[in-house]
């Protein structure tokens, strides 16, 4: 039987339905799991996404892009393939793509997490025969603290800084993480202000019906914004520029799953790192794989080799799926450019010799037709 998803030069392709999932080149028809830059590229003929993510995708793809939506769980037929989108819990509107054809069901997870997130619908396990899963944090050293612990840590840090007259700056990806953090912290501690890139997404979230505490846009030429009491949410790209000087004395913390590692925190010079990720941690990946009841698992995006090997040892038919993103994750890629997914693997976000799409997609194991 032919696979429902294969890797082509333009990305994950469903031949039977003639559409792509998260293509990395412009294609006529693209199903988008979520609006992060490494999953949603401009220039496709038509986009399909889950309804809650439409405004976010619109703000990323531009006003002219033709975007179709389906509700979470609603199924449609595309050239005989039954397609439905199910909450992935990653960011607003993020979806797992369920494909059914000829009695076989595949699910492409996109990015996902199992933790509670007040800004998007929670992850829903979807049963399938074949699961294509991400593995950004697919090593057992990655285990996330609960949202309550993260919120308490953030609040304590913010309060401490406020009492010392220092502005708290938390660096987080502009789409998703920034809004989640704003929703997690205790807004009674002080004013929350945000970088313009974050505000654009805050507005898209609000317009989509997500409730967020009051957040002010940082005025372009303000001096000592917030008087040392504010929590500033900004993308990591502000590091090294002059923007941070607006705030006088600051304490700068990065919010990322990579902050788990002492070496990464030290190298990046962060006094404080918060382990907050919108990806599944290692136990989360295993739980999601088990809940899918899939017998065959294709692992992409991160630590594909070790995770696939572990699954094989546990009796599943598992293999790494070589996509454009199959380079090994490098914690130091965190937020190198503003428009990168801060937790995307390195070779997907920066040009490096020998890792271009053509080289990386050649010789894909286990996915060729027939």
């Amino acid at each position, binding site marked *: 039987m032919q696979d429902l998803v294969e890797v082509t030069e333009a990305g994950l392709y469903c031949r039977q339905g003639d559409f792509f999932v998260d293509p990395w080149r412009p294609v006529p028809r693209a199903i988008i799991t979520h609006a992060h830059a490494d999953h949603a590229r401009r220039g496709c003929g038509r986009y399909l996404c889950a309804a809650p993510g439409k405004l976010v995708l619109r703000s990323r793809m531009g006003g002219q892009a033709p975007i179709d939506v389906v509700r979470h769980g609603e199924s449609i037929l595309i050239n005989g393939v039954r397609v439905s989108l199910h909450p992935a819990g990653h960011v607003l509107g993020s979806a797992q793509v369920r494909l059914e054809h000829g009695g076989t069901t595949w699910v492409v997870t996109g990015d996902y997490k199992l933790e509670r997130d007040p800004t998007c619908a929670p992850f829903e396990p979807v049963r399938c025969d074949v699961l294509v899963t991400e593995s950004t944090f697919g090593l057992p050293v990655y285990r996330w603290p609960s949202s309550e612990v993260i919120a308490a840590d953030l609040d304590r840090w913010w309060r401490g800084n406020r009492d010392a007259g220092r502005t708290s700056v938390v660096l987080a990806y502009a789409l998703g993480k920034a809004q989640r953090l704003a929703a997690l912290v205790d807004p009674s501690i002080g004013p929350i202000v945000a970088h313009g890139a974050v505000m654009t997404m805050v507005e898209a979230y609000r317009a989509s019906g997500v409730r967020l505490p009051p957040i002010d846009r940082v005025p372009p030429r303000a001096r000592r914004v917030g008087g040392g009491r504010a929590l500033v949410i900004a993308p990591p790209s502000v590091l090294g520029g002059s923007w941070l000087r607006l705030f006088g004395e600051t304490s700068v913390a990065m919010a990322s799953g990579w902050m788990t590692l*002492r070496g990464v925190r030290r190298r990046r010079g962060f006094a404080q790192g918060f382990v907050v990720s919108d990806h599944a941690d290692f136990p989360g990946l295993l739980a999601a794989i088990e809940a899918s009841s899939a017998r065959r698992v294709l692992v992409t995006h991160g630590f594909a080799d070790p995770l696939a090997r572990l699954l094989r040892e546990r009796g599943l038919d598992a293999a790494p799926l070589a996509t454009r993103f199959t380079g090994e994750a490098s914690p130091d890629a965190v937020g190198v450019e503003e428009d990168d997914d801060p937790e995307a693997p390195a070779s997907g976000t920066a040009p490096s010799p*020998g890792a271009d799409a053509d080289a990386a997609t050649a010789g894909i194991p286990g996915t060729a037709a027939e």
Partner: protein
Amino acid sequence: MRAFTDLFWQLDGTTRTSEKLEALVAYFRAAPPDDAACAIDVLSGGRQIRAVPTSLLRQWAAEVTGLPPWLVEESYAHVGDLAETLALILPDPAAPADEAAGANEADVGLARLMRTTIHSLRQETEARKREVVLATWRRLASRERIVWHKLLTGGCRVGVSRTLVARALAEVAGVEPAVMAHRLMGGDVVDGEAYRRLLAPQRHDADDRRPYPFFLASALDGAEGHDVASLGGVADWQAEWKWDGMRAQLVRRGSDVAVWSRGEELVNEAFPDIVAAGATLPAGTVLDGELLAVAGGRLLGFSMLSRRSGRRTVTRRLLEDIPCVFVAYDLLEERGEDLRGRPLHERRLRLEALVPTPFAAGTDAHGAGPPQVPSAIFLSPVVSAASWTDLGLLRAEARRRGVEGLMLKRRASPYGVGRTRGDWWKWKIEPLEIDAVLLYAQAGHGRRAGLHSDYTLGLWHEGRLVTVAKAYSGLADTEIVEVDRIVRATTLEKHGPVRICEPMLVFQLAFEAVSASTRHKSGVAVRFPRIVRWRRDKQPSEAGTLDDLRRMIPGGVPR
């Protein structure tokens, strides 16, 4: 353990000396004396024992977590630090009792923890070790486990110098840092009682063994218009060889001898031969000079010296294998009188009257050669020349002589404090350089854990690249990250932590000297190799050859 864990993470979380000092002071002010004594030992890099082999820890961690051993190894390779890896993969401890009420009960002091779960564990059976380790894992939180693992495996390095620990303790005790540094050398602070003595505000007998602050030279490298042409007449300057050793002061006062390193660390334990020789000097003498390793009439170089300098005990064998000398180049105190304000030429005359010259008549007048007298303390010879040009020619011989260049000191100058520009210059020879190709990369440790920052480089020989040097990267952090990415993307093979990469990156390798070597496959050994620049403008085919490197060997090219 909680207080020490907090200290560990505070020290870990900052690179600012002032913040480290603050954290240390706060810890010592609050710590029970027994714990403080124990912490001093750990922080100052005291003898640490490996109570449990790391192979067993990995094995037990795999058992406890139900993970296959290869995945534990894979995780270690990613994290770059075993203590941290294990701490992260182990299940969370049983929920601690109510924080406030249960804290004291659950928290075991550092000293007791060291005694019960580390020191007494070494002699125990494997089964007993396992029992204690697993029980401790169940009790400690992840951040405590990291610290405990480091103590348990004898690898607890926190990134504070002994000097900084001494400064913190000095502040707590209200005495001068040099006094505290010296008190710390009086013997191990074995228990709370010894810690209380350490902090006593009154004078100890030995407090006056203190050195003077070191005067430091600036580099004469053409920067800011400073070169020999700007120095005036050559006759106003005293030139000496710049020795590749360890700067030190030898203090002989009362009945004591103290050898101090430039970091104001007392290094008596590492240099008992120098201490013995120092005892023959008249009381009230302070010499400034350089410790060098010399054997069989040859300078042994810095790497041999460092095998001595880090020791707290030196075996007879090591003393015989790596004998050391103290080359004196200044006299700071004579018969108890501070001479630092007097001009150098006067101090030099007095020094020459006090310390023997090593060079018997008839030897090389410029004498960068080996010492001929059986004394462990001798005079640094003056290199004389009629002009800057002549002196420059002598400087060019430095590499052949095994020294780093010349020191230039203004004859009329007093002995200054710190690095005051103008009177002392180091006029070093330029390093040797060659462009080499990256062949293997390995993940670094500490600040660079998980990043491929240790590079093995190769040069062309008969159409192939042969490895010639392993060098730590001197690149900027952003470049290291970029190289790391390329290494990951172009890995041909993985051998444990080492990746063989496609030869595509060219680096400029700097080093101090090249010598023939039978221990290296290439037949040459480069000294103090370091990467100074990423040659993005060069293709691997444009890198240097092994023959280029061989031509840099002084005195010919062995084949």
